[in-house]
Structure formats: C-alpha cells, structure tokens
C-alpha cells in the first residue's frame, strides 16, 4: 500500500512539474521571447527538409502560409518558398515547360497540355535548401549570411549591406532583396518556430504531408528511416552544396 502511495505521489509530482513547464514554455512561445524558451540547444539539432513530389497537389497553401508567417512581401511579390509545375511534353522532353504563376500562391490553372496524351505533369515545391556548404555563406563579404550550429542558413538583416553577391551565388534562386529594408531575405526554415518545438509554417500547413521537417541529429527521428527506404535526391548535386532539402520522386527534368 505504501509503495502504491509513493508511486502515486511520484506520478502526480511529475505531472504537475511537466504541465507547469509546458505552460511556461507556451507563454514564451506566444510572447515571442525565444531566448527564454527553455530547452533549445542548437548543438543537438541538424535540420533537414524532405519534400515528397509524389504527394504535392500544387494547392499553394505552403506559399500562402509562408508569406503569412514571415511577412513576405506580397506586392511586389517575392517568395521564400514557391511551387513550380513541370510539364514534360513527349514531343520535346528536353525542354519541359516550367510555370509558377505568382509562385503558386493561388494554385495552378489547368494545364494547356492537359488533354494531350503522354504529357507528364507534376509539382515541385522549392525553398532554401539550407546547404551544409552554402555558396551564399561563402561569398558574403561581411558575415551577414551564415549557417547556424543546427544547420540553418540565416541572414543578419541588421548587418547585411544589400550587395547582392549571395543572390547571384545561390544556385537555387532562393534569395531576393527585401524592398522594405533593401537587405537580402530568404527562407529561415521558420527559425522562430522550430527553435520552439513547432513545425515550419509550410510543413504545418501542407494538407497532403508532402513536406517533412527532420532533425538528422535525432536518432529517433523518422527521417532516417525515410531516407533509407526512399530513393531521394537533392537539387543540383553537382554544385557540391551538400543541400539538406531531400526530394523524393525527383524527375530528371527538374533543374
């Protein structure tokens, strides 16, 4: 009986402590005070993104969510993430038609080749690849672009000169000059969210689960099993950027 009581007290105590700390963490999340968000150690993470092209329906919700979450410019329209549609015509397979009306923000109109037999059509969501050896980091003359210890490529907007070297250096076209600050801007992998234990906005919102945020340093993360059991590819592997955005079902037509 006494053992039961001890057990009960222990469990209750644990529950109380856990609930209190979770509540405290949530308060900080809401108040956007990450420096006080407890329990985040950048050295214990190594973030990566998986994109499953076979699941993407080109709805554009990720583009909308990214703009909403990060205040990305709508007019003129710039993109931290965008969706491209590839149409590979069997009569001219070397020159796929790539369209991305408003970055896929409003979805896609029906393809003009929709009724033509043999045309291969698919959507490819794109974002910063958060390369481990990023050309943009290498070319920044002032150290305003850098890779964090948890593998996220970020911009120091207070330090950026707006020289545009990195915009030219990125092989994936993921950077643009923010017209409001005249400094460079790009996907931060929702650093303000992932460091609080949340998903990135695009992953959170994707209705088909075509995007997955993984932590390569966490041995229990399903990303390891996913990468092992699927035929994944990164964009432009010949650039040796060591991209951490892995695509499942990536067609050779995608450049």
């Amino acid at each position, binding site marked *: 009986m006494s053992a039961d009581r001890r057990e009960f007290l222990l469990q209750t105590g644990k529950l109380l402590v856990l609930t209190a700390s979770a509540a405290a963490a*949530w308060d900080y*999340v*809401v*108040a*956007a*005070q*990450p*420096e006080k968000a407890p329990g985040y150690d*950048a050295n214990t993470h190594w973030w990566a993104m998986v994109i499953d092209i*076979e*699941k*993407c*329906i*080109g*709805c*554009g*919700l990720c583009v909308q*969510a990214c703009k*909403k*979450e*990060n205040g990305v410019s709508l007019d003129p329209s710039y993109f931290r993430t965008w969706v491209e*549609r*590839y*149409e590979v015509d069997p009569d001219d397979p070397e020159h796929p038609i790539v369209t991305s009306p408003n970055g896929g923000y409003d*979805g*896609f109109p*029906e*393809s003009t*080749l*929709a009724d033509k037999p043999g045309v291969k*059509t*698919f*959507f490819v969501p794109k974002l910063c690849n958060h390369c481990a050896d990023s050309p943009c980091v290498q070319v920044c003359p002032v*150290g*305003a*672009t*850098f*890779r*964090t*210890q948890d593998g996220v490529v*970020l*911009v*120091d907007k*207070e*330090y950026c000169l707006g020289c545009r070297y990195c915009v030219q250096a990125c092989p994936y076209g993921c950077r643009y000059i923010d017209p409001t600050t005249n400094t460079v801007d790009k996907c*931060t992998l929702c*650093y*303000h*969210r992932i*460091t*609080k234990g*949340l*998903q990135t*906005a695009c992953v*959170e*919102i*994707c*209705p*088909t*689960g075509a995007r997955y945020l993984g932590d390569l340093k966490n041995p229990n993360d399903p990303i390891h099993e996913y990468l092992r059991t699927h035929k994944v590819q990164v964009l432009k592997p010949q650039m040796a950027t060591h991209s951490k955005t892995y695509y499942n079902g990536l067609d050779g037509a995608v450049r």
Partner: protein
Amino acid sequence: MPFRSYEHLLRLAAVFLAAAAAFLVVRWLLVPPDYGELGSYRTAAVALNQARAISFAGQAACIDCHTDVADARKENAHAHVSCESCHGAHAAHAADPAVPAVKPDPRKTCAICHTPNAGKPAAFKTVNFREHADEGPCTACHSPHAPRF
C-alpha cells in the same frame, strides 16, 4: 660595422606603429563584440531571427482544447490535414480564446485542394465543382471533419 645613421629607420618604425595602432582602434570600433564567437557572424543575429511572433499555432495547440474535433478526425481521409490548413493562422486565438476564430469558406476552402489539375497525383480525389454541386456549399452534404465520398 654599426649604422652611421638610423634615425630615419626609427621614424619609419614609428609611422608603422601608429598605423598598426590606428588599424586596431578602428577594428575595435567597427567589429561588434559578439562577432566571431560561433563563426563568421554576430551571435546576436541568431536571436534576431528567432525574435518573431508566430502566426500559426500548430496542431498541438488546437487539439489541446478542441478534443471533440480531434477525436472525430482521428480515422478518416482528413486525419493528417492540419487544422490550420483549412482554418488559417490562429495563433492569436490559441493564445487567447476570446479572440474569435474565423470560419473557413464552405466551398472555396475545399476547392483549394480538390479542383482537378493534370499535375495532381492520380490517387488524389478531385471533382469538377460546377458539375458536381453548382454553387452550393460543400458542407451541405460533406463533413470536412469526417469526409465521405
């Protein structure tokens, strides 16, 4: 053999020393103190990127209160669709339930995903909305929390 004259060398050395000192002072003035602690960047820049309020509360925050909807959605075609995919960003509502939640459009919201398009995977259910249900709301027949086709 000793130098016959070395004063000019001392003067030159003084110029070099002054230049080096000036360089160090200017460098000290221009380089932020936290630059280079973790790498070739300011440590403060990391916190700068973190300091942004969230717009999307996240699935966990939604089902914290709306357990009935979470239970209804457990085993159906929409089980893996996040609440905010249809309902939109609701971090303000999650932080303070007094902030009203916005109801999604009962037709346009469905059309975002279920409009036919050649690029969509074959297994994904699409329907021609005009032919299927003229102008009416989809929710008249279908429940988005427990969809049946």
